[in-house]
């Protein structure tokens, strides 16, 4: 049933791809270009507001103080009246542009007010409409092969609940049909084995999966994310460091991926069976520097995990919801067997993980549990996002915008081989990044871009990443390319 409706919606989506600009449809008053009101950004009002904010809130990561009431479509306004083309989008989490009229409608609905003020403990007292909200939204968007969901509140939370599901799944296999032993029950209360698991989650070098204690143990991006925090002794495998351009480095890259797969398998083999409960991997390592790998690499991961009965978690927190030119980036791989769990958050506004094996629901209730178990108000927003993405063909449009942008970006960067390199994300929607010769140059370019009214984010040590909305179109790409050309010259 679910698969069918998904197929139908996909077919409908490709046969009736609405032509024309969705941005113009949503945002008749979207600015045509950036508007600069102050000499520098942050401007004086932003700075004053941020200073005040600093008295009660850690504000040292503030870029500028925003005025969301005046932000429209792809343009974010700051407190000084500057309007910037936003290609960072709240760390990759704005799907349909600022002040999207359909989201406004959803937010103003009685359904939303009800969900906000009567927040249920979902696993105990779900509402009459929760199933339908899931069915029409989060589940309608499920990746191929997935038909169940556990809802959470953030990317970290989604990953950690997926880890919990993995640990309980593996322990149940080891335990077989017997009940928990008295020793397990007693030792669990002492935080000790055998009641507490000695299992591990394997992640990849430069991966980023969040910042709570379990997720942070799998995060391998930067020291500053991890310092001073106790960590579980979980293993990490190398992630391929591909050479660009890909077409000129086919063999070297194949060898690199094989090296990583071999290392991956030998780490898994170094543990007793069922001890590596799961591996977690991003389709593109985003925070860690937009590191890509080939479909063959991920198929290799899938094969090895199946062989060793290790669960495969794909972290689509940053890659999910259309930006890659597929709704879920891992759909690019055409895996022979779908991953076991797929986690999401950010652009979907709701968080959680998809799965299909009912044994990923623990054998007893109240094991995967907490007070709220998600948030219906976010599920309503996710439903609206999904329906709009389908209605306007935004996944396909994002693929097309990416195809328009990529070669032109290549041409702009090619003029500055001494400053920039390693453009990546071809045929991957607008999920594009490139490197600079060093962090200083990268940071300077981001500042130059901001001074020209374009907000771009960095990632890794030396990369810039594009994370625009799904209504970022060719006209916006032109604005971006113009600003980039000028900024690169100013470097």
């Amino acid at each position, binding site marked *: 049933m679910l698969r069918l409706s998904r197929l139908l919606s996909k077919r409908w989506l490709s046969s009736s791809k609405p032509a024309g600009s969705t941005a113009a449809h949503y945002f008749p008053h979207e600015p045509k270009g950036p508007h600069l009101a102050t000499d520098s950004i942050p401007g004086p009002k932003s700075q004053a507001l941020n200073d*005040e904010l600093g008295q*009660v*809130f850690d504000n040292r990561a503030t*870029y500028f*103080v925003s005025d*969301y*009431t005046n*932000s429209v479509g792809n343009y974010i306004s700051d407190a000084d009246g500057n309007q910037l083309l936003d290609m960072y989008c*709240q760390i990759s*989490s*704005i799907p349909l542009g600022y002040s999207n009229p359909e989201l406004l409608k959803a*937010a103003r609905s009685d359904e*939303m*007010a009800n969900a*906000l003020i*009567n*927040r249920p*403990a979902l*696993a*105990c*007292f*779900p*509402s*009459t409409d*929760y*199933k339908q909200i899931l069915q029409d939204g989060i589940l309608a968007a499920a990746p191929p092969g997935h038909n169940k*969901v*556990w809802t959470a509140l*953030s990317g*970290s939370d989604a990953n*950690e609940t997926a880890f919990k599901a993995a640990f*309980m799944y593996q322990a149940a296999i080891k335990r077989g049909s017997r009940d928990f032993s008295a020793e*397990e029950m*007693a030792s669990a*209360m002492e*935080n000790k084995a055998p*009641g*507490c*698991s*000695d*299992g*591990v989650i394997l992640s990849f070098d430069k991966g980023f999966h969040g910042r*709570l*204690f*379990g997720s942070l143990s799998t995060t391998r991006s930067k*020291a500053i994310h*991890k*310092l*001073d925090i*106790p*960590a579980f002794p*979980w293993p990490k495998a190398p992630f391929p460091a591909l050479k660009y351009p890909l077409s000129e480095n086919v063999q070297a890259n194949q060898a690199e991926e094989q090296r990583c797969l071999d290392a991956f398998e030998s780490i898994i083999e170094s543990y007793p069976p069922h001890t590596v409960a799961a591996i977690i991997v991003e389709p593109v390592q985003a925070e860690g520097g937009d590191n890509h790998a080939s479909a063959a690499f991920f198929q290799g991961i899938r094969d090895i995990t199946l062989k060793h009965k290790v669960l495969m978690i794909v972290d689509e927190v940053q890659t999910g919801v259309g930006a890659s030119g597929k709704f879920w980036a891992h759909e690019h791989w055409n895996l022979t067997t779908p991953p076991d769990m797929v986690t999401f958050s*950010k652009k979907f506004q709701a968080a959680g993980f998809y799965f299909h094996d009912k044994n990923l629901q623990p054998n*007893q209730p*109240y*094991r995967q*549990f*907490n*007070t709220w178990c998600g948030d219906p108000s976010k599920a309503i*927003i996710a439903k609206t996002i999904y329906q709009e993405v389908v209605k306007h063909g935004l996944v396909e449009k994002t693929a097309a915008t990416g195809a328009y942008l990529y070669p032109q970006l290549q041409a702009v960067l090619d003029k500055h081989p001494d400053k920039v390199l390693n453009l990546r994300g071809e045929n991957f929607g607008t999920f594009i990044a490139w490197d600079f010769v060093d962090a200083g140059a990268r940071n300077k370019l981001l500042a130059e871009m901001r001074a020209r009214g374009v907000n771009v984010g960095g990632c890794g040590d030396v990369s810039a990443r594009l994370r625009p909305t799904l209504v970022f179109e060719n006209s916006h790409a032109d604005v971006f390319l113009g600003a980039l050309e000028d900024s690169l010259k100013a470097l």
Partner: protein
Amino acid sequence: MSTSEQYFPNEPVAPTVVTSEFPGPKSQEGIKSLGQVFDSRPVYFIADYEKSVGNYIVDADGNSFLDVYAQIASIPLGYNNPALIEAAKSDKMIRAIVDRPALGNYPGKDLEEILNGLLAVAPKGQDKVFPALSGADANELAFKATFFWYQAQKRGGHKVPFSDEENTSVMKGQAPGSPELAILSFERAFHGRLFASGSTTCSKPVHKLDMPSFNWPKAEFPSYKYPLDKHEEENKKEDQRCLEIVENLFKTHSCPIAGVLVEPIQSEGGDNHASNEFFQGLRDITLKHGALLIMDEVQTGIGATGLFWGHEHFEISPPADLVTFSKKFQTAGYYFHDPEIIPNVAYRQFNTWCGDPARMILAGAIASEVVKHDLPAKAQKVGGYLFKKLEDLQAKYPQYLQNLRGKDRATFIAWCFDNSAARDKFLKDMKTVGVNIGGCAEKSVRLRPTMVFEQKHADILVAAIEKVLSGY
């Protein structure tokens, strides 16, 4: 007019029970259908929130229950509260839902105002806040803040930079960059179910089994004899015994203890209370050992104990270092006051959203309603009234109302049955008389009504309890 009458002119005057089984047939259908896509095994019933009003929750079958469980202690002002509807429909709220910011990078112009809504009701001695999304999230962020602070002290101060060795070892998950440090918690405590909060939770094996855990220590939490006024001597000794265990763990645990985490009343673990002296003792020990004291007010906060924050009853000095909240506040996070609890550089206490302005706006509205209507004091009064009635019932049915506790803690009341089977039967039977009521630990019943639970609701509750018990 009472507050509930002002808010809810159409609140039912009594429960309505229309089905003979619970969950009713429509709920059962809904549970089955939801179960295809979402774990629905813990579901009590499917609720119809549109029809629920004030202290009454309506289910899919049309039963209307007096709700003294209130979404596991998380509904502050009753269902469909008009003041909250107003907040939910406000432009500010719409904006917060539609354009959710990454607060740490691009705070909106209104963030300070929104935060001030939370700070207006900060516990005594606290004046800063870091937002989170759930109780477990709030606690774990508080642990992170604690570890950052503790290592900074060890390093020689807030401004001392990281060593190269720290920077390299941390990427291997090894000390000194990833230090072995502990949060001390208590037996029977509940602080959440993610990996670190799960390591501090110690209420039931089912919460912890098969999860990797940090090797963090547990002290004993006092087990008092009731009634308290007849066992003062013994209970004082019990405090002393437990404090000695804490003190001892500081000396003997295999790694340094950076913080002590405690609930003002251990809720999931059975509504276990402890004295002011016990909490002051914890404060003294943490100060002595250079550790932080974290109060978990996730379940006790927002007035249910008769003061806005449960730990304010203890009047400990100096104030706790961190106070975590969630549930009834609808937003989560931690309060603190020492500027050095903010880590030395940006992006250490950080994540994509850093909280949710939509939930914080609601929290601001909740706080201002609670203050405006003086609801903690009113809860204290209703609680006193209710406690007396329960004492009367206890005299009549001592077997079914053992260890009645929560005197002078407003409606935060609990008692014990002989065993979990008897308790579970009671909880179930209460449905037949139209009351939705929760348990905690093995054999306790806990009352967790809203802040607009009044004398008339207490009368209905007591009559319902008596009706059930009289059939035993």
